[in-house]
C-alpha cells in the first residue's frame, strides 16, 4: 500500500542533500521577510503592488502550497480512504476557514477572524485588548471552543481531529511537507527534549496570557480619554513579555524554524517540540480514548512505521513488544498504520469493546 514511498532514500532532496539545504535557507529567508517585515519593509511593498496586505499574500501562498501539496499527497497515498478523507478535509478547512472567511470579513470592513485557530496557538485570542474588538459571538466562540469544544473532541477522537484534520500548521506538514516526513528524529533523546520543550512553551503561553490579562485589568480610561495604569513597571514587563513571546514563539519557532527546517528535520518541528496547543491536546489525549492498537505477534520490526512517523515516535518499539499505546505527541496522521506491510497497527477511538481490536479488553462474545 505504500508504493508512493518507494525510492524515498534514493532521492537526494529527501535525504538532506544540497538542494534540501537550499530550500531550507530559502524558507528561512522567506519567513524572516514575512515576520519581520515591520522592520525590513521588503515584502510589504510587494504585496501592496499586488493589491493586498502582506498577511493576505502569505495566506494565499500558504493555501496554494497546501492545495498543490494535497494533490501530491493524494497521488502518493490516496489508496487509503483515511488519507483521502483527512486530506480533503484539512485542505478545505484551510481554503474556507483560514483563508476565505477572514478575507470576506475584511472586505466587509471588519477584522478577519480565523475560526479554525484556537488559543494558545492563536495566543491573541485570549488577549483582552484584541478579542474584545470582535463581536460578542466570536468572543464567545473563542472562549467556549477552547474550554469545551477542543477538550471534548480531543477526549473522544484524540488530538488528530485538530492537528492533522483542521490545523493549518499540521495541514502544511501533511500536504506540501510530505516528502520530508521521514526526517523527524526518532531517537530517545529527541523524545526527552520534546517533553521539556513543548511543556516549557505551554507554560510560557499560560504565563504570557495571564500577564497580558492582568495588565489589561489594571488599566482604566482616564478622565481625558487615555488608557492608563497605575503600575507602569508591571505594564512595561508585561508588554516586553508579550513582545518576546510574539518574537520567539510565534515568529521564530512556529514560522522561521517550524517551516524552515522541513527539509532538514521533518515537517513537525513546531508541532512536536513547541506548539502550546499541541501540548494541551497531548495531555487530554493521554486521558482520552484515542489509541493505536497493535495486533499481537505480527510485527516484523521492519521500521516503516517509525521511519514515516512525522512526530518521531518510535512506533516499532511498541509494535514489536505487542503494546497498544497512547502517545501525547501522536497527531493521528495514520501513516504508521498505512505503511505497515503486515497491517499491525490501527488507529482507534471506539469505546465499544466488542468493536475494538484491543484483544485484552475484548470480552468473550456470545456463542
Amino acid at each position, binding site marked *: 500500500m505504500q508504493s508512493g514511498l518507494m525510492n524515498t*532514500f534514493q532521492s537526494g532532496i529527501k535525504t538532506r542533500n544540497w538542494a534540501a539545504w537550499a530550500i531550507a535557507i530559502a524558507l528561512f529567508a522567506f519567513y524572516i521577510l514575512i515576520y519581520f517585515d515591520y522592520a525590513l519593509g521588503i515584502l510589504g511593498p510587494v504585496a501592496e503592488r499586488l493589491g493586498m496586505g502582506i498577511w493576505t499574500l502569505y495566506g494565499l501562498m500558504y493555501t496554494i502550497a497546501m492545495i498543490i501539496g494535497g494533490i501530491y499527497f493524494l497521488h502518493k497515498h490516496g489508496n487509503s480512504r483515511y488519507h483521502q478523507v483527512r486530506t480533503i478535509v484539512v485542505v478545505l478547512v484551510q481554503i474556507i476557514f483560514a483563508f476565505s472567511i477572514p478575507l470576506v470579513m475584511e472586505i466587509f470592513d471588519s477584522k478577519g477572524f480565523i475560526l479554525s485557530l484556537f488559543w494558545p496557538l492563536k495566543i491573541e485570542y485570549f488577549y483582552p485588548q484584541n478579542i474584545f474588538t470582535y463581536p460578542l459571538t466570536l468572543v464567545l466562540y473563542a472562549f467556549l471552543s477552547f474550554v469545551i469544544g477542543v477538550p471534548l473532541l480531543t477526549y473522544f477522537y484524540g488530538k488528530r481531529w485538530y492537528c492533522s484534520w483542521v490545523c493549518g500548521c499540521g495541514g502544511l506538514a501533511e500536504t506540501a511537507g510530505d516528502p520530508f516526513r521521514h526526517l523527524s528524529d526518532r531517537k530517545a533523546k529527541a523524545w526527552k527534549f520534546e517533553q521539556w520543550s513543548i511543556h516549557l512553551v505551554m507554560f510560557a503561553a499560560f504565563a504570557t496570557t495571564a500577564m497580558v490579562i492582568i495588565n489589561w485589568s489594571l488599566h482604566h480610561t482616564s478622565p481625558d480619554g487615555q488608557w492608563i495604569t497605575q503600575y507602569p513597571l508591571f505594564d512595561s514587563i508585561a508588554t516586553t513579555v508579550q513582545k518576546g513571546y510574539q518574537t520567539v514563539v510565534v515568529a521564530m519557532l512556529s514560522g522561521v524554524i517550524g517551516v524552515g527546517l522541513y527539509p532538514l528535520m521533518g515537517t513537525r518541528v513546531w508541532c512536536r517540540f513547541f506548539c502550546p496547543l499541541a501540548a494541551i491536546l497531548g495531555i487530554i489525549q493521554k486521558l482520552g480514548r484515542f489509541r493505536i492498537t497493535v495486533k499481537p505477534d505480527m510485527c516484523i*520490526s521492519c*521500521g516503516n512505521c517509525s521511519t514515516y512517523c512525522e512526530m518521531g515516535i518510535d512506533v516499532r518499539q511498541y509494535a514489536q513488544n505487542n503494546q497498544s499505546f497512547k502517545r501525547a505527541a501522536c497527531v493521528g496522521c495514520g501513516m504508521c498504520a498505512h505503511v505497515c506491510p503486515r*497491517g499491525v497497527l490501527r488507529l482507534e477511538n471506539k469505546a465499544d469493546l466488542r468493536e475494538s481490536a484491543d484483544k485484552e479488553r475484548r470480552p468473550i462474545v456470545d456463542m
Partner: protein
Amino acid sequence: MRYAIVGNGVAGINAANTLRHRDESASISLVSSERDHFFSRTALMYVACGQLSEACVEPYERDYYEKMGFTRVRERASGIDAANHQLIFDSGNRLEYDRLLLACGSVAVAPPWPGSDIGGVGHFVTWDDLTWLRREMTQAKRAVVVGGGLIGIEVCEVLIQAGIETHFLIREKKFWPIALSAAESDVVVPHMKHHGCHVHLGTEMAEAVATNGRLSSVRLSDGSQLDCDLLVVAIGVRPQTDWLRETGIALDDRGGIIVDDQLKTNLRDVYAAGDCSSVVWFNGVQRPEQLWYTSRDQGVVAGHNMVGDAREYRRGTFYNSAKFFDIEYTTAGLVNFHVEGEVDWWQHEPGTYYTTRITYLPAENNRVIGFNGLGRRWDHSILVQWIEERRTLEWMLRHLGEANFDEEFMPRFAATVPVEGGR
C-alpha cells in the same frame, strides 16, 4: 555464567535480551560474521528499493549492545567442541561458554540446474545479498526471478520499482499453491501483471547461460531462451547447519537442529532457536519454522531455559501474514492442509482484490478450521481464538466484522455469499 549465541538475528538478540533480563552479571557474546547490528531481515526489500535506509531497519539504537553489555564477536563459527564447552571459529580462535545457543538461521537453497555460480546470479536472503542486488540493479535491464514464494515476489516488486523488466518464473500452475487457492492465485497474478511483472506460470529453469563469464540468458524447461542480465534465485531457504555436521548434533532430514520442547539439542548445554532449529509443529510434525515471530518466541524461550527457567516452547494454531505488491494477506488455522471433508466458504468482493476464504468441516457442525484473507486487514489473534474455540461457519460470518482490522473509512466487510445448505 558465560553465554554464547551464534547468530545476531531475531532469535539471537531476543535470547540475549532475555538472558540480560534474567541475569544482570552474565557475560553474553553474540557471534556473527554478517553484521554488527541486529536488523530486520524481513525488511531487506525496503532497503533494496529505497523505501527505508539501512539504519531504518535496525530496531535498536546504535549504542544498544554497549548499553546491554553484549559482547560482539565478529567471527564465523565453524564447529563446536562440546566436551570442552568451546565454540570453534574459522579463524582458529575459540570461545569458551557455559551455555551455547545456536541461532544461525537459514541459507538460500542452491539451484539444482547448471550455471548458478556465474556473475549476475544470486539470492536475496543476507545483508551481503542486499549489497549485491543493489549493485546489480544499477545496470540491469532485464531480470529473471525464479521461485514462486514470498521472497520471489518481493524481489519482483523491488526490481520493477527500479524500472527493470522483470520476469517471474513459477514452477507451479498457480502462484504459491502451498498457501493460496487457485481462485486466490487468480486474484494475485493479474495484480502482479498490472504492476508490470511478467509472470510465467508452470515454467521451470533448465540452465543459466553465461557469455564471457557473465549471465546472458536463461534456458527454460520447454527449451525456450530468455535473454537477461540478472537472475535472482528464490526457491527457498534451508537451515544453515552444514558447519555442524561433524559435531554430532542431531539434525532432521531438512538439516534443522532437532530440539526438545525446551529447545535443548542432544549436545549438553547447547540450545537452538530460530530458523535453524527443528521443533514439533501443532500437527505433530518435526520440522523448522522459518517465520519471524516464531524465531523471536523461540529466542525468548531459549534464553529462559539457558538460565534454568524451564520454559516450554509450544506452537499454537498456525497464522501468518504477507504482502503481494499492494495486496495484504492474512492466514490462520489449517488452510490448504487438505483435511478430510473440508469445504471452503469463499467471497470475492466485486471490483476489488478483497477475498475471504473460510475452510470448515460440514461433518463437524460446520466447525471452522482455517481462514485466508486477501486485501483487507484481519486481526489474526481473534481468528485464531475463534478457531480454537471451535466456532461454526455461521457464527464466524456473523462476527467476522469484529476481527476486521482495516483502516478507518474502509467500506465495512459484509458476508454476502450464503452458506451452502442454508444451515
